[in-house]
Each structure stands twice: as C-alpha cells, then as structure tokens.
C-alpha cells in the first residue's frame, strides 16, 4: 500500500496544483510541500522495510487486463527502495529550487514536476511489464514539456532530439514488451520466466541505453542538459537516467540470462568507451553544464560496467554508485544553476574568482566536487571501488579503465572548481554577486548530508540492496 501511496501522492498533488487558483508562490509552495510529504512518506516506507526479507515488499497487486495477464503490480526491493529514496530527495530539492527562482506559469510547471515524480516512482516500483512501460513513457510527457516550454533558447531543437532518441528506444521496447508478454502468457515480472531471444532483449536494451544514456546513444544528452531548466537537467541526469539502471537490474539481467551472457562483452566495451569518452569531453567542455552533462555520461558508463559485471561486487557497487551519482549530480546541477543565476552564463571563460568573499559557495562547491571526483573515504569512492573490483572479474583491462576514469574525474572536476572559484575574477562575476543564500543552502545541504552519511557508512546501501547481500544469486534466480 505504501508504494501505491508513494505513486499516487505526487500525482494527486499534481492535479490539485494544476487546478487550484493560488498565487505564484502559493502554487509553488504547495508543490514543494507535496514533495516534502513524499520524502516523509518514503522515510515511513523505509522504516517499515525489512532488509533481510528477499521478497517483494510494501506491494499491491490488482488485476488490470485479465485476459492478457496485465496487472497493476507494484512493490519494492532493497535496491528499488534506495533508488526511490534518491528520487524523492532530488525531486524535493528540484521543486524547491523552482520555487526559489520562481518559474513562469507555476501551475503548469509544478503540476508537471509532481507528475514526473509519480511517474519515476512508479517506474522504480513496477512489477508488471506493461505498467513499467506505461510509467517509463509517462516520464517523457512532462519532460518534453518542461524542456520545451521552460528551456533555453535552443529548447525546441533540444526537445526534438530528446524525443526522437527516447521514442525510438521506447517503441522498440514496446515491441519487446508485446513479444515477451505474449510468449510468456503474462506481463507480470514476478510470474514470468526467462527468455533466450536476443532480439527481445535488444529491444529493452535499446530503450535503457538511450535513457541512461550509454555511448554511442547519447546524442540527445548535451543539448537537453544544456537547454533544460537547471533543476530539470538535475532530475534528468540524477534520476531519470537511473530508471535505465533499474530496467537492467529488474528486467534485463533476470529475464534474459542467455542474451546477457552472449552480449556482456559488447556492453562492457561500450560502457568503458563511454566512461573514457565522456570523461574526456567533460574535460574539454567549455561550460559548466557541459562538464556536468558529460561527466554524467561517464558515470552512467561506469555504473553499467558494474551492472554487466554480473557479480556481487559489481551489482552492489552499481546500486551504491547510482544513489551517489543521483545526489552528486543533482547537487552539482543546482550549484551550477546558482552560479549561472548570479553571472548569467555558464561559460568557463567568463567565470572565475568567485571564492573571494563567498565562502559558503566555495565550500559547497568544493565538498560536492570532492564527492564527484571520488576522493578516498567518500561514498563515491566506495561505489567506484566496488565496481572496479567487480569488473576486474571480467578482465583486468576494464578495471584499468575504471581507474583511468577516476583519474579523469579528478581532472574535470578540479577544472570546474578552479574555473568557478579561482583564477582571476571573470568578466561576468560582479563584485555584488551574493554568496549562497540560506534558502539555496537548505536545498543543497540535505543532499550533501546524505552523501556524507553514505561516506561514513556505504554499506547502508550496498549491503541492503539485495536480500542476503547476494545480488548475483538473486538475479540468477529472477528475484524469486
């Protein structure tokens, strides 16, 4: 029941926000309140969650279309609980940011954001293929409008490429959903067995690879992340990308063991290529958003390496790193937004010297940056180390590339930090540009605090993501 409430609360909130004729601030404030309630609800769900029990928890299952075996079936496993947690926290921060900057047409904007929250949670909780597809697609509708209406000057091109890429992937997945469900006689993920059809797997993989995005299907990424409103970019890179990881963990690996076995090499090579390529582009990007966007591509490659290592360390690391990256990337994007808000640009050439007289901004950016570059002792370091050791089982070359990725991450993150904070003051940085306000701080600090908790205790996520802390076995048994 709690899972259903987690899905319905933001959707109901979206309807209320869309209809109630409140003032600008009232609308946005109400939306923020709903987002905070959602976080509280998630905490309640997590406190009721039994991490030793391997079965589906807090779930609901009702018949939807009986003759085809379609059901409304939701529930959480350990890893989906953590992904959902990251999602609700990031959404609360993003909606709070939108409240702070005061987006135009607040009723439409906040209704869409809350609807997106519900769709994302539903995706993480879906235990039925049709329901999964429905939620996966339902995410696209608000994203399309959020980028297309509130985005930057090239927003229409951004939405076009974004929609073309995602829809091609999604519709291939629809064909696979139909083929898998009809062959199995049920669309339920809990009841269905495995399939050895490579084509069906490829349909799913296409959708996930576009959503993540994985190299070389990331063509929509730079434009979408640059043109989207900054908090929407945060949600895209932090949360929406993780639905792909969820898809691989819940559908890709357990339902298609043989195709995964055959194609592991290809996916690993592509992920490794994405890791290096994304890192290099992030190092060369001329603007803040470019750096964060391409680093996101690199991180998704890294996480996929962990997933497709298909062993205990890799899978644990992938979940931990998904949560880490969600928090790091959202904090980073929001900080980038705050810098852009002050200077009117994200071009590195025009920035610089912001540390002087702005200690809070400098501290926040530095702490988040340290997390992003996986300084030893941080949660991200734990995640990347797990992935590295996990993927070592597939070949030492991959582990070397992961290590290289960590070095490159240090390079591009430090470049970002020094370009904003140090060197001489850039032409757009005025003396009057304020330090971070307490409201802005209140948006970023909770996420950074979560990261610090995870740094102290990464096992909180990594050991409770799969029952008995035996992810490879759980996945091989198809979550039964």
């Amino acid at each position, binding site marked *: 029941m709690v899972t259903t409430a987690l899905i319905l609360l933001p959707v109901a909130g979206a309807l209320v926000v869309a209809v109630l004729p409140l003032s600008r601030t009232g609308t946005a404030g109400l939306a923020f309140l709903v987002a905070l309630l959602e976080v509280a609800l998630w905490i309640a769900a997590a406190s009721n969650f039994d991490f030793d029990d391997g079965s589906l928890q807090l779930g609901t299952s009702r*018949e*939807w*279309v*009986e*003759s*085809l075996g*379609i059901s409304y079936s939701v529930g959480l496993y350990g890893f989906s609980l953590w992904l959902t947690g990251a999602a609700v926290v990031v959404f609360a921060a993003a909606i709070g940011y939108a409240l702070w900057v005061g987006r135009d*047409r607040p009723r439409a904007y906040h209704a869409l954001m809350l609807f997106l929250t519900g769709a994302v949670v539903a995706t993480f909780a879906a235990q039925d293929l*049709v329901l999964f*597809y*429905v*939620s996966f*697609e*339902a995410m*696209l*509708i608000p994203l*399309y*409008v959020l980028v*297309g*209406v509130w985005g930057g000057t090239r*927003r*229409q091109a951004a*939405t076009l490429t974004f*929609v*073309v890429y995602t*829809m*091609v992937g999604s*519709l*291939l997945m*629809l*064909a696979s*959903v*139909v*083929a898998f*469900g*009809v062959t199995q006689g049920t669309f339920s993920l809990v009841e269905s067995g495995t399939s050895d059809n490579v084509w069906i797997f490829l349909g799913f993989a296409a959708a996930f690879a576009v959503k993540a995005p994985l190299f070389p299907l990331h063509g929509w990424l730079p434009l979408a992340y640059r043109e989207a409103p900054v908090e929407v970019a945060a949600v895209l890179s932090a949360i929406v990308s993780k639905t792909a990881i969820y898809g691989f963990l819940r559908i890709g690996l357990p339902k298609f063991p043989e195709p995964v076995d055959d194609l592991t090499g290809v996916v690993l090579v592509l992920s490794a290529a994405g890791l290096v390529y994304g890192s290099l582009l992030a190092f060369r990007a001329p603007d803040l958003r470019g750096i964060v966007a391409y680093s996101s591509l690199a991180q998704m490659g890294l996480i996929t390496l962990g997933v497709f290592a298909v062993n205990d360390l890799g899978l644990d690391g992938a979940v931990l790193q998904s949560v880490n990256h969600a928090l790091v990337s959202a904090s980073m994007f929001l900080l980038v937004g705050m810098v852009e808000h002050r200077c009117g640009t994200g071009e590195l050439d025009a920035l610089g010297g912001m540390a002087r007289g702005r200690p809070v901004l400098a501290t926040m950016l530095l702490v988040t940056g340290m997390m992003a570059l996986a300084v030893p002792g941080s949660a991200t370091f734990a995640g990347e180390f797990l992935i590295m050791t996990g993927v070592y089982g597939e070949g030492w070359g991959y582990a070397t590339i992961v290590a290289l990725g960590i070095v490159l991450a240090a390079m591009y993150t430090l470049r970002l930090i020094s370009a904003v904070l140090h060197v001489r003051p850039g032409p757009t940085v005025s003396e009057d540009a304020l330090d971070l306000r307490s409201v802005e701080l209140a948006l970023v600090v909770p996420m950074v605090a979560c990261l610090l908790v995870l740094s102290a205790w990464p096992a909180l996520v990594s050991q409770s993501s799969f029952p008995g802390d035996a992810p490879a076995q759980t996945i091989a048994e198809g979550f039964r």
Partner: protein
Amino acid sequence: MIETPKVDWLALAPTLALLGGSGVALLAAVLVPSWMRKSVAAGIALAGFALAAVLAGVVFSESATPQALIAESIVRDRLAALAQAVLAVIGGVVVLVSWAERRRESAEYFALLAAAGAGMVFFVSAENLMTLFLGLEWLSLCLYVLVAIDSERETSLEAALKYLVVGAFGSSILLFGSALVFGATGELGFGAIAEAGAGDDAFLVAGLAMIVAGLAFKVSAAPFHMWTPDVYEGAPTSVTAFMSAATKTAAMVVTLRILVSAFPEESEIWTIAVAVIACVSLAWGNLAALAQRDLKRLLAYSSISHAGFMLIAIAAGTERSGEALLYYLVPYSAMSVGAFAVVAARERELGRPALLEDLARFGWERPLYGAAMWTFMLGFAGFPLTGGFFGKLFVFSAAYDAGDWWLVVVGVLATMVSIAYYLNVVRWMYMRSGREMRLVPAGGAPPRDSALGAAVAACAAVTVGSFFAAQPLLDWAADASASLPF
C-alpha cells in the same frame, strides 16, 4: 387475417429510434419558428442518438446468442449491438459539437445526421450482401449531402462532389464484387456463402477482392484513401468529425464481420491482402501527414494511418483480433471526434480554416481545449495514460499471437514516424514564442460554447478513461467478438 412475418422489433429499435428522430427533426424544419428551430432539431437528434444508444445497450445484454432475422437479412448479435452503441454515442457527441454552428438549414442538418446514424446502425447489423449494400448506400447518401450542406462555401461543394464520385466508384466495386460472389456460390447470406465454400473458385476470390476494396474505400485505407484528405478538409468540421469516427467504426466492423463470417475458407488470402493494405495505409498515412500544414488534412492522414492499425488487427484473423479492433475503435473515436471538435472551436474563433500555425499559443489561451488536444495527440501517438496505448498494445499482441511479428515491426516503425507530427501539434500549441506567431485577427472574445466544451471534455474523459478501465471495455469487446465464428 393476413399472416405477417415475425419481426423482432427490439433488434430494429436502435435504427428506428434514429429514423424517428430524423423524421421529427425534419418536421421541426417546417413547423418550428425559426428562432428556436436549431435548438429543437438538435435536441431531437440528441434524444434520438441517446435513445438508440440505450436500446443498443439493451440489445447487447439480451443477445447472448446471435440470431439471424427477417429472412436472414440482418443479424441480432452483440457485435452489432456494441457497434451500434458506439455509433450512437459518437452521433450524440457530434450533435453537441455542432450545436452552436450557424447555418441556414440547421434543422435539416440534424435530421440528416440522425439519418446517417440510422444507416450506419443498420449497416453494422447486415447479414447478407443485399442489406450490406443497402446500408452502405443509405449512410453514404446522407453523408454526401452533409458534406455539401454549407452550400455557400465552394470547398464544401467541391468536397461533396469528390466524395460522391469516389464513393459511387467504391460502392459500385462493392456491388460488382457481391455479384461475383453470388454468381460463384448462389447465396447472399454471409453464413450461406461460407457453407457453399466454393474454395478456390476464381469468381469467388475476385468477388472477395472487390468487396475488400469497396470496404477499404469507406474505412479510408490506402491506396483507396484518395478522397479522404480533400473531403475531410472541405466538409464542415463537425461532419468531418462524424465521418472520421462513425464511418470508420461502421465500415471496420462490417469488414471484420463479412471477412470472418462469409469467407473463413479464404482466410489465407484475405489476411495477407488486409495486412498489405494495412502496411500501405500506415506508410502512406504517416509519411503524408508529416507534410501537412492544414490541421484537418493532417488529421485526415492520421485517420488513414489509424485505419492501418485497425486493419493489422483484422489481418491477425483470430478471436483476439476482434477484441483488439473493437477496443481500438472506442478510444480512437473519442480522440478523433475530440480533435476535430477542437479544430472546429479554433475555426470558429478565426472564421476560416485553421492551419497548424493558427494553433500558436492556443494551449495557453484556452486551457481546456489545449489540454484536451494534447491528450488526443498523445493518444493518437499511443502514449500511455490514454486508451490509444492499450489499443496499440492489444493490436500488436493480437498480431504477434497470430505469428505476424512483422506487422508488429511495421506498426512500431509507423508509430515512430507518427510521433513527429502529433508532437508538432503540441509544440505549436505550447512551445512557440510570441515572436514566431502570426497575430490572429482580432474578433473580440471568442463566443462561449458550452456544448462544444462538454463534447471535448467527454471525448478527453473517454480517451483517458478507456486506459484505466480497459478491462470492462475489453470484456464487452470479447463478448461482441464471440458472436463471430472465428
């Protein structure tokens, strides 16, 4: 005492309700003073459609086993009853859409609408080749006049003439095909034709091909669709809404019925033929829609492509395909009537045909119509949270189940293309900045039209509702589909 044949009045009741409504509305044209003529005629037509819908519902619940009636010329079964209910509801909504339209012959318009509805309701219960042709001509004649009813507009007349010529051509092909089938089997009734089972008789196959072609004209499937964009563009928009939903529903149901019940032996031939027509419609409709600027032409090509999706279901040729088709028709009809109704609303504001760019900022100016149009476009494109999604899912499942995986691939590719132009409409409504839009001629505040608003809201509710309540609809569709001998 003269012995009369037993007539099952209940089975005829939906048809008679509409015919009665039509007659009374026509009387209103003469007897009612002009200032209230339109409202009275519209009210009568609405009552007729509502009564027909209720009666069709009664027939549906009372007809668990199919019965051939009146010398086996029509049939009383759940397939017909369900289609009749859908048609009557479409007609009722179209009455609401056209409620506030001003025209000289307003009472005649509503009388013709009810008469066309009666023809369709009769058409879907046809059980032999004679009644099939009779029903087809009945509905077509009413539609020819309806298309031409704005006789002061040249485009309306042009569209009617085109429709008349092409429609007559289609009808005559159907008639010739019927003659060939009769020649080959000596039978007119669908069941009797199936039993006569002439097998690979060349006459029968040629007749079958011509019947399929004749019906393909009515469902506007490519390559028999040439009239569709012109007629949809030229006809009064409310008539276009009626044609795009009701004519297609009626013709699809009849196509399914005649193929399954009269030609089961030849199913290997017609499944391939229908699959080819489906693919051509999908390709042609979607690609041509990409190039359209006129909204009604765009929706016309979209309706051609949807004929393709529905024909995929028929091509599967299993019981599940009947369910999928009948389900698909419900959200499709709602989306189609709704979308044309929104176009009608915009046209009334502008006083001229609406182009794509006339929708600039429309979504922000008119939130209800904008949100509804958004729903319809996403529904056409098969997005979740609309019945269009389940329609596509069921159709693809039926095709995959029947082993036609390549039809699924074609359908998915077609959907990819279709998203481009459906989302383009959304883009125009919401995402164009003020600089890009041409200023709309100022005509003061647009007239309030609560009937039209109610119609659009109802269509949006059905579009979304058919997603969440897919199971009951599918149950009805399964009941209806079970009355055919798959």
